[in-house]
């Protein structure tokens, strides 16, 4: 009796301490196709980005109030766990994220069933698309105009429209700033590609729609890992051969994957 009791207790203790369960049912039901949506959740240095509200001072001691944040996202592709890339149909692969209109999610339908490890997209409009001329842009041209993402057709798209006011040590009165970054025709190419490795695979298939939730840090547009730009020095950055490419690099670094929702399509 004593022995059986000991054995029982031991079995129980073992069972109690083994807290994980690994009954992976993945893959077996992955057929057909599904939708992957990507949420661009705009934030500012870890906090939520609220338009018209002052944010904490950045590394350059500038206190920024954002009044507008819009950017173009394009050419989405997914790399599956076998390393194969699925490129979303190019003509359908141009989107505008706009904080003012709360346009913060893009939906990519009919992605072939599978598990994807990586998402890639571009910030802005690539030269290939631009060189298709005004007719080649389809509805996106109108969409861009409606969202203040065009200078003029010749000048091209604004890839990023970042506006607001700021104060700094030397500029104590709230002062407007405008950062419009784009490619300026074909003379300066500011289109950038972003590659994000997912913390866990995103899964799609028939009946399985999934979501990639990105956390955006808009403070990095000015104070990024690569370039630090002071508004105190220049408040309007548009066609600027030096600062505009720096902004383009910084903007490509604002995206981080927060989490994946597999199977509940949001």
């Amino acid at each position, binding site marked *: 009796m*004593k022995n059986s*009791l000991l054995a029982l207790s031991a079995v*129980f203790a073992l069972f109690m301490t083994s807290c994980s*369960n690994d009954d992976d*049912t*993945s893959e077996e039901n992955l057929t057909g196709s599904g939708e992957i949506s990507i949420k661009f959740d705009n934030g500012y240095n870890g906090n939520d980005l609220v338009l018209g509200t002052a944010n904490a001072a950045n590394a350059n001691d500038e206190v920024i109030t954002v009044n507008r944040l819009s950017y173009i996202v394009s050419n989405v592709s997914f790399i599956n766990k076998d390393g194969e890339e699925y490129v979303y149909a190019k003509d359908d692969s141009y989107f505008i994220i706009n904080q003012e209109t709360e346009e913060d999610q893009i939906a990519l339908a009919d992605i072939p069933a599978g598990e994807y490890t990586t998402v890639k997209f571009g910030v802005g409009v690539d030269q290939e698309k631009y060189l298709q001329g005004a007719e080649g842009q389809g509805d996106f041209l109108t969409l861009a105009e409606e969202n203040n993402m065009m200078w003029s057709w010749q000048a091209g798209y604004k890839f990023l429209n970042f506006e607001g006011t700021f104060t700094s040590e030397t500029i104590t009165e709230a002062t407007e700033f405008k950062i419009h970054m784009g490619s300026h025709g074909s003379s300066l190419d500011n289109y950038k590609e972003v590659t994000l490795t997912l913390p866990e695979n995103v899964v799609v298939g028939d009946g399985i729609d999934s979501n990639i939730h990105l956390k955006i840090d808009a403070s990095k547009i000015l104070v990024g890992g690569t370039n630090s730009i002071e508004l105190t020095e220049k408040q309007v950055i548009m066609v600027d051969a030096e600062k505009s490419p720096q902004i383009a690099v910084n903007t490509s670094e604002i995206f981080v994957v927060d989490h994946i929702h597999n199977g*509940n399509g949001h």
Partner: protein
Amino acid sequence: MNDLQNTKILYRFLSCVCVSFFTVLSYSNNNTHTLDTNPNECTTHIHYDGEYFDFCDTCGCGSSGGSMGYGTGLNNNFIGLRYIGQEYRSRDGIFADSPWIKENFNTIQAWANVPITKRAILNVIVPYQFHNRVLPDNTEQNINGIGDISILGYYNLLKATPDSIVSIKPEHYFQLGGGIKMPTGKYDKDNNEGSVNPSFQLGNGSWDYVLAINYGFTYRNWGISTMANYTIKTKNPKDYQFGNQLNLGINAFKTYYVSDMAITPIIGLAEEIYGTNKEIGFDVADTKGDVFLGKLSVEASYNRYALGLTGMLPISQNLNSDKVELRNRVSVYLNINL
């Protein structure tokens, strides 16, 4: 922090390892001579209500409130009603300043411990839940209804001292139990969407299986009780599976006699550990976690009636990647001993 870690390790050690150790020890003790020959008539009046563990019956991590009162005691068969109130807050969003949503989980349980044989006990819990939360847009969401009914059987491996014999040596009990938790509570998929607490549900929606172990002893009017239980949760019809759950608890209590009443203050520690939830077989991010709680409780018994009051506060926690926080738990119960 080190102290806390050490406490937790010590505590787990106590709850898990000592259960077997003490039991074997006590088993052999049963055959040895009585150490003290002074009869103490109070001992037989001790209620074993220290083993009413205030784990509650809700869903996944966070609000799962770690299962329920699977704890039973020797000589302690009862029917009763228990109210459990739990306050949580969960973060609606991914940012450091995303708003917290306050969530109140309320449960009224009809519960009973019914003797089947001398050593076997049937434990039944029928919960009714009424939960509410206020969303950031100030709309209030209420859900209410019956929760998941659980039925467990326990077998006491130790012979109880017959009531007629007054014993002054430590009296041990050691119970193994198992049972089911039925999907009688409604699981609403919509409540799981968005980034707020996925456990805002009336039930898991799944057939779950419970394994339980209780060990304790009383000596004179002192007592120690420990418990551990593990809930294996299965996939529900919406293809959602809450993570398995381990609950541990240890309590110390002492009974005082005031005229006809017995007053038992209880001090305890509890830990709940949750596995990751799965949806269509894939891990749901930020759903595992653990919470370590301190507990203070007092029970007053008179004749066949026992009235208990319990408060629990988290000592440390990491639920849903800190997106869910347990604030407190309270419970009140009224039992009639059979």
